[in-house]
């Protein structure tokens, strides 16, 4: 019997000569589900119970909506099974370059470590916490577009709404970028024409993928034990004793009348609208600038033509046609991506507000009913 603990795992005894791996034929039932080239499109996302609780914990503990991390798992026959996740640190270093490197190093070592304990180490996407239903922002889309090339199926974005979860409805939604948006993004062109040809509005940047929640049987059984109610007939019972030792007593936070988040929600909408107005002003200014430069250039061309006509009629050699783009600097057409994102933000904020107030209305009438009895 050893009296001390070994500091590292014993080396495997005399590693047997690695036999040539034998490949078994893929059974016919599975051959349809196996796709090496990621040909089968994703139709749904399946979240493991552990992932759900990990994300909720991380989102609550991180300040604001800064919580984000990576999702690990596998895809099988159109269902993306997310079986694990890990959070990414918020601030690693001071300067941009260092922190990006540190982040990459963090990711690789985390993935290697997870692999060692037989956990999945295949990155399938990101998760991001949000509040009040709004998650459109440029950095999210940027990260996702960069990952698009590297991940199978381009990776998914899982967004988790903190405020909705606090209100009693755990909210997770999965998205991926649409083809049209990716195309426009690759060309780095979000001018009005490009938007029209790609038919892009804020609602067509991302497409939603339905989510399923799954608890493995072991977890299910454990939860069952935790929330086990002592079998209890309704009649002839003593209410006090029904609160037997239950690790998960029922919760009624949904019934809270509180409308405290409404003020914040309204403020957010107003903020987003102000930002949108500024952005619109910028775009309008840019467009006026473009129009002015264009008129100048056109006037110049017309004048040069008239001059030349005069010179020709006088028998002189015409002046050379000059490159107008050198003389007049026509600014590039403004990108409308930011304003589109802002519209998306306004839309989701107001959608949340609408949902809160309609649920609040029901609760108010319910409360009045109780008060009148």
């Amino acid at each position: 019997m050893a009296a001390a603990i070994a500091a590292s795992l014993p080396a495997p005894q005399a590693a047997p000569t690695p036999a040539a791996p034998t490949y078994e034929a893929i059974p016919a039932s599975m051959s349809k589900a196996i796709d090496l080239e990621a040909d089968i499109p994703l139709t749904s996302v399946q979240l493991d119970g552990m992932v759900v609780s990990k994300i909720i914990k991380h989102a609550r503990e991180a300040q604001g909506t800064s919580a984000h991390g990576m999702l690990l798992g596998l895809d099988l026959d159109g269902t993306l099974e997310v079986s694990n996740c890990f959070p990414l640190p918020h601030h690693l270093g001071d300067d941009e370059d260092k922190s990006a490197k540190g982040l990459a190093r963090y990711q690789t070592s985390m993935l290697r470590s997870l692999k060692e304990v037989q956990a999945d180490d295949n990155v399938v996407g990101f998760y991001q916490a949000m509040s009040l239903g709004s998650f459109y922002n440029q950095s999210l889309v940027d990260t996702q577009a960069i990952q698009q090339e590297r991940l199978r199926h381009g990776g998914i974005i899982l967004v988790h709404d903190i405020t909705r979860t606090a209100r009693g409805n755990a909210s997770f939604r999965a998205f991926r970028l649409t083809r049209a948006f990716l195309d426009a993004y690759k060309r780095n062109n979000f001018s009005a024409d490009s938007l029209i040809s790609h038919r892009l509005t804020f609602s067509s940047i991302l497409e939603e993928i339905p989510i399923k929640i799954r608890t493995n049987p072991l977890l299910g059984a454990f939860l069952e034990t935790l929330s086990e109610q002592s079998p209890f007939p309704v009649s002839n019972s003593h209410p006090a004793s029904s609160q037997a030792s239950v690790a998960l007593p029922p919760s009624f936070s949904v019934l809270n009348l509180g409308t405290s988040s409404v003020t914040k929600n309204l403020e957010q909408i107003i903020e987003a609208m102000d930002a949108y107005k500024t952005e619109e002003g910028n775009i309008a200014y840019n467009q006026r600038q473009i129009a002015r430069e264009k008129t100048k250039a056109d006037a110049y061309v017309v004048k040069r033509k008239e001059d030349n006509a005069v010179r020709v009629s006088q028998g002189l050699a015409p002046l050379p046609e000059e490159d107008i783009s050198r003389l007049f600097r026509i600014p590039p057409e403004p990108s409308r991506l930011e304003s589109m994102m802002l519209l998306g933000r306004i839309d989701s904020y107001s959608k949340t507000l609408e949902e809160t107030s309609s649920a609040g209305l029901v609760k108010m009438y319910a409360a009045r009913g109780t008060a009148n009895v």
Partner: protein
Amino acid sequence: MPLAHASSAVHAQNATPGFLANPGRAPTSVTVHPVALFTILDHYLRRTDAQERVIGTLLGTRADTGEIEVKSAFAVLHSETAEQVAVDMEYHHAMYELHHKVNPKEVIVGWYSTGSNLNTYSALIQNFYSQETAPHQAVHLALNTGAEGGEGAGVKAYISSPVGVSPKPENCVFTPIPCELTFKEAERSGLDLLTSVAQGSTDPYPAADLDILERALDTVSNMLDRVLSYVRSVLAGEVKGDAAVGRYLMNTFGASTEDLDKGSFNASLQDTLMVSYLANLVRSQAQVSSRLALTRAS
């Protein structure tokens, strides 16, 4: 919220402050966050055939009162044979570094293992973790997965103290301390979701707010029925009334509803309707605006 069936074990506090070799208060109780539990269960599912149990490190915070809050956990490689036990300490340190980057507040508080047998190897591992958590004591969380016959699922927490005339690392006494499940109210809905899935509910996800409200109201209604039947049976003289229950009922149902009188209800109703109207207005404006951006000026 106890995590295991009540045991007859006395939660003996062997730690008299100032009497111990190591400073700091000995842990008096342990609270466990669901994430840690779920991680342990997942690790257990992913073990290799050769492993009978899995171990890992617990991260969390210590309060001055001796209460330890286990907030998360990660798996650690280890192997047990008849001759020796080995823990991959390098892996443990590397993983702790990684976790520390994301969550600097969480420190090593102890270790977990699955199954409920405490043997010599447990003592050795406990000894190792005590060095990691020094000067504080390490806690040991034994999680019974309930997968083995005859034992129910549950979690027990232990602290250790040396035993014998000349204490050796492979000998120690594991003293049970109380262990509870804890989480913030905001995380409650996530657990509710998992519980409903575990119970085989086929409700579509995501659920609408009103559906959840309806479920909660149903539960309340059931509870009221139960209380009503109890009160009726007390009034009929079938059951002897409990004064404590009566007082609770009095407090609950006597709650003031004066702020819901006519005037303020209507004002509040108007506010809510107004907000709802505004929200819809803003939304349709946003939609129109995004469509307008797609039209060519002609």
